[in-house]
């Protein structure tokens, strides 16, 4: 899994590429969930490059959502890949997160 992060004021942006599963969720938790606070309460997660997602990753996304809600923030899933969309839809989690098709900040910076 490749994790690319960026920060705008008040926002944590991350692009996840590859497998997002029990073996790779640790770095995500460190880089994203544990950095949520009153000054960084909105998280934008680009899932465009995810080719596999499992229940551990879904649980991590839900935990991220709950943390942002504590500070009045939100989680936005952007450019959800077909693989990730199927799993989110199967579990009805697609209705829980805000969705976006915009290219995330980390990936914009990489291609600039």
């Amino acid at each position, binding site marked *: 899994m490749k994790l690319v992060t960026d920060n705008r004021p008040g926002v944590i942006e991350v692009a996840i590429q590859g497998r997002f599963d029990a073996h790779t969720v640790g770095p995500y938790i460190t880089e994203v969930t544990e950095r949520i606070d009153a000054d960084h309460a909105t998280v934008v997660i680009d899932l465009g490059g995810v080719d596999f997602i499992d*229940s551990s990753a879904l649980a991590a996304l839900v935990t991220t959502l*709950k943390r942002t809600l504590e500070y009045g923030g939100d989680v936005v899933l952007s450019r959800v890949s077909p693989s990730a969309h199927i799993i989110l839809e199967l*579990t*009805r989690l697609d209705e829980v997160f805000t969705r976006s098709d915009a290219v995330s900040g980390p990936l914009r910076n990489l291609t600039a």
Partner: protein
Amino acid sequence: MAAPSTADRMLAACDLFIEAGTHLDTAGVAAAGSEQLARLARCELAVVAFEGPDGISSASYPHALPANVAETLIRDGNTVSGRSSWLFSPDNRVASIRHGGTYRGAIAAVGPVDGDFTVIEEWLVLVVARRLEAQLELIDLHRQSLRDAQIVHDAVLAGEMQQALLSKPTLRTGGVEMTASLRPARHVGGDLYEVAEADGYPIGLVADVSGKGAPAAMLTTAVHAAARHAIAAAGPDPVDILCRLGTEIAPLLDRTESIVTIAAAVVDPAARSVTVASAGHSPVLVRRFGRVSPVEPSAPPPGVPNFDTGLRPTTFTLWPGDLVLIGSDGLTDQRSPHGGAFGTDRLHVSVEGLEAGPAEQNVASLFGVVDRFRAGAAQDDDQTALMIVIGEDDR
């Protein structure tokens, strides 16, 4: 008596080395090493001293170790040049011992018997030191294998305990047969099922806890206890069962940062109907008149805030030969040796192809199809199948 030949000394070295390999404690290694050194190097006193896994180990042969010699040898054995101690006289031979990439101590052949050490004897001093280093590595490996064996043993026992906590897997009443089977991917897992009856209504529940291994298994045990409590409190109402269960485990899911997908089915034997509710769980399939259709979850899984807001039941009237399957994603996610997944389409076809037979037979057949697809590849995830079969009306 003539001094032993070089060949005899080599044979003696082999015997000593074989015997030394039986020692799995550092004290025994030190003692055997000192005797080896004394016999092979033909010295008046052989000393071994090192700091190993069990602390400082030291020995000497054939005399008792003089006071402070072990500490001196460990302290200075790595840099003996210029030292004035009798231990480091130019007539003696000292070789260092390294373990884990670090200097740990040394061996010393003190007082050569015939005035000076031969080249062979100097070489043998080094050989004994290397042999001691190898033996220390063996001790590490042996102890690690014991720890690993204990971990595996504990996991096997935990798996047996987890299986023992599952309810009796088969229920038959009023022409309805319900059966469940769970195959963990490792000794312990994150799937669970419950087959129960309330007020004459068979109730089946399958849940899948996020994560893998021991942490998921421990959470699964708590969820299972809560599920039994929820079924007893709610009775034959799958939405109420899931709401009560989700509410009870919500604090636990918060603390463990987990989610649990759950589906429950309640059978009305008199009406020949099955009512299903699913919170984020799939696959849930219904086969009616030979055609399979999925039952989509109506809500996300517990762990999500207010998960039960949209939770709704779905009811089917079933006829003889119809069936309901609540599985876990371990069935659809199973990979073949070539890496492809079993998938939902293949599962649908497999369920359509099941014969109108007993539920236990159908579950076994379904697992057989998945196993043939797996073709010897490792089982990727826990696999659970709970099947409800409607038989002929025997009222």
